[in-house]
């Protein structure tokens, strides 16, 4: 079970943020926009990560990774760079929409209240 630890954590991150998709236009429902935002950053960080692993700046405990390897890094590390930004985007999308609703209601009640 131990070797699934890293994957399970990433899966948990995906699950816990999934409900945030209901806010506004969501993130997963705008796949092109998502790809355009994610891809350039993903490439940059993967290069950084591959160099850091090659130079032994950090490495992964074989006990807690699946053993499925991508070029230069474990599968989990590649997924990390997709999952974490997704969590950030869903959070931002939800917070923006909630603030928008709050502002609209304040505006409405300000208009309705007698001066």
């Amino acid at each position, binding site marked *: 079970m131990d070797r699934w630890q890293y994957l399970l*954590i990433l899966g948990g991150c995906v699950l816990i943020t999934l409900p945030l998709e209901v806010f506004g236009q969501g993130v997963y429902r705008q796949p092109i926009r998502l790809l355009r935002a994610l891809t350039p950053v993903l490439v940059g960080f993967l290069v950084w990560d591959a160099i850091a692993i090659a*130079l032994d700046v950090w*490495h992964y*405990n074989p006990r807690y990774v699946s053993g499925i390897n991508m070029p230069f890094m474990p599968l989990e590390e590649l997924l990390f*760079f997709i999952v974490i930004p997704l969590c950030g985007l869903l959070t*931002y999308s939800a*917070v923006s929409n909630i*603030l928008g609703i709050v502002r609209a209601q304040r505006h409405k009640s300000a208009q309705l209240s007698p001066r």
Partner: protein
Amino acid sequence: MIGLGYTLPAMMSVVVVCVLELTVLRTGLFREPAYWISMGIVFIFQILVDGWLTKLSAPIVIYNEEHTSGLRFPWDIPVEDFLFGWALVTAVLLLWVKQRPDMESGRG
């Protein structure tokens, strides 16, 4: 403890993201309360997830201490991870906001 392998690139990543926003992207994201609230939430969850990944009793990610500052806080999280995480999430948010319809129509 030289820090060249992680501390320096982590600091550089923050500088690069800030320079990109201020010179090229100009989204105004840093002036949005929604951004700072979101990053606060992300920060709390980073402590939980990263704390688990880096705990010295059973680490998933193992750092070569020659390349870090050696500062670990809270728990056993190398402080560099917070710069790294900030740059990663902020960069994606910037490119996301850049594509917002009101940005693409030229206002941004």
